[in-house]
């Protein structure tokens, strides 16, 4: 390790920590080509968004592999969100290819890019090929699976394609969210209400960390109810700690209210923060994605959009390749035409990657034209879903 590498390592670490702490203010990694190991003319090229922490994690993951990383401008946003809103699309990749000289220089023997699977909702591979001549293949959903992906001869299996939302990711998410919710104690601090601020700080801390860290162990199927349960747990837990740490232990739960913190105040803020977290869980793509109204009406978090495969399916298998919830499988019956079949019912998270990638627009919504409508990267989404737009390859 030379001095330059050490400086780079320290800078990357500091900025990564900053990215975790203030999650919603993205830092951009400069667009360009990063060389890992000693890449040759045949080495693979991995495409990444330019959210700083993603690039740092990718570099760390690929440090023992001879390859190149093409950092593409995604406005500093993570791959999945950026692809969904159209910030990470084929034009941005083309721009990065032209700007880095990957296109004209004799850097590569092949014209193949390995794209993050979660960007499938935003990238039109056909257009990318038209503009740059590069073909794209989908990598794994989680960048930590990349070494396994390489040893599997650049093919993904259903395990690699599934979004897992591991403890590490949940922990980072909890820190980011906790810092956003610090706004409440901060406001109380400004108005010199120290005790209330301290109290709210604890409410935030328990609610958010219980919800995210204990996510798989909490009862209820849906995230929103899990967070409400976590809110209830943290309410009891906090009051228990308070009654233990109090000098006068004779006081029971209803008497512990101190000056300024009445039971009403406590209930209101616990309820509000729990409710806000529950609402946030409704939009969390790793699980489900639904609207607040739908949650109130039906009481479940299941996405309103659920894929349905129509008879125009040609069995190309692209939906299977890009689905992060492992919803699709291909029929194995050799006597019939190969088509896509649905694996799991109702586990869709409305990422719309299948709709974007299907070459014949065979995927429709089981719930007709109702869905959350937060995916912006498919220009004719409505026409595709109501069947007025058909395309043949």
């Amino acid at each position: 390790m030379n001095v330059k590498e050490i400086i780079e390592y320290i800078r990357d670490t500091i900025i990564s920590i900053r990215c975790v702490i203030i999650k919603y203010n993205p830092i951009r990694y400069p667009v360009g080509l990063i060389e890992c190991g000693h890449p040759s003319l045949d080495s693979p090229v991995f495409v990444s968004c330019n959210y700083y922490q993603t690039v740092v994690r990718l570099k760390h993951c690929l440090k023992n592999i001879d390859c190149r990383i093409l950092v593409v401008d995604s406005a500093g946003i993570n791959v999945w969100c950026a692809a969904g809103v159209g910030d990470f699309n084929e034009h941005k990749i083309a721009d990065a290819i032209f700007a880095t000289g990957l296109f004209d220089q004799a850097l590569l023997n092949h014209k193949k890019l390995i794209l993050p699977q979660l960007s499938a909702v935003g990238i039109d591979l056909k257009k990318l090929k038209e503009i740059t001549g590069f073909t794209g293949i989908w990598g794994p959903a989680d960048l930590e699976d990349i070494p396994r992906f390489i040893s599997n001869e650049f093919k993904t299996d259903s395990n690699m394609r599934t979004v897992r939302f591991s403890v590490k990711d949940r922990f980072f998410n909890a820190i980011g969210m906790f810092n956003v919710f610090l706004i409440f104690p901060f406001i109380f601090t400004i108005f010199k209400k120290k005790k209330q601020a301290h109290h709210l700080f604890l409410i935030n801390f328990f609610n958010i960390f219980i919800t995210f860290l204990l996510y798989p162990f909490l009862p209820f199927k849906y995230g929103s109810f899990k967070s409400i349960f976590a809110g209830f747990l943290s309410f009891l837990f906090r009051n228990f700690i308070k009654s233990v740490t109090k000098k006068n232990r004779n006081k029971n739960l209803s008497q512990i209210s101190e000056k300024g913190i009445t039971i009403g105040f406590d209930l209101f803020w616990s309820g509000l923060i729990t409710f806000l977290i529950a609402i946030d869980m409704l939009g969390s793509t790793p699980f489900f994605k639904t609207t607040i109204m739908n949650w109130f009406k039906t009481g479940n978090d299941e996405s309103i959009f659920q894929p349905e495969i129509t008879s125009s399916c040609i069995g190309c298998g692209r939906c299977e390749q890009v689905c992060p919830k492992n919803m699709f499988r291909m029929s194995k019956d050799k006597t019939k035409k190969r088509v896509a079949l649905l694996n799991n019912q109702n586990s869709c998270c409305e990422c719309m990657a299948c709709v974007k990638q299907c070459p014949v627009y065979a995927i429709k919504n089981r719930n007709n034209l109702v869905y959350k409508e937060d995916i912006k990267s498919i220009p004719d989404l409505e026409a595709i879903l109501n069947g007025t737009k058909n395309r043949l390859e």
Partner: protein
Amino acid sequence: MIIYGLMKYIEKIPVRYDAIMNFLTLGYHSRSRKILLKQIKPGKKVLDIGCGTGEFAIQAASLGADVVCLDTSPEMLRVFKEKLMDPGCIDNEAVAKIKIIECGSASIDSVLKGKTFDLIYASLMLGELSEIVRKKTIQAAAILLKDDGFMIICDEFWPETPLKSLVYHFLFWIFFIPNFILTRTLIQPVKNFSEHIESANLTVYRKIDLLMGAMTIYWLKRKKEAFL
């Protein structure tokens, strides 16, 4: 919830984009546009890089220019196309003069290969690009420029003198929070601009500062080839 609310707001932004930009720049957005529009003459071939919702392109086409518009954001272009459908916004003659291409700014020389333009506009888009993409964009645009054509760039530039730079740093961090809240992205002023135009073989023909240098309009021209 805070983020949720912001996201909801920004989702509707393409429609209000011009209004917000005008507000953020204290009305200088439209004033700079007026200066730019003075250059348009009927029959001129104009390339609008980063056309957004096409406000400028529509005005230029109404003045009789042939406009090619580029943008990467399908959402912005959707609003633009809706405007073209609306007869209250633009007349049919002008609609025929507008051509919309969805493409990135650094790939223009390969997408528009062989075409040349009298005027190339890049208004408030260079700051959103990463440094090497910006450099490539200026170089690619220079290739598409006619020998007597102008490239007009209207953007926020990082001041080069130390005192101005210091004041600018100060203002930049004050406005950082409202700017971030309104736009959710960080628009960086353009740095190392003179270096980039040098590499693209262009030279500054004219320069206008607006709002005490917070916004600048550059007229760039191709450098005369040295006599051999």
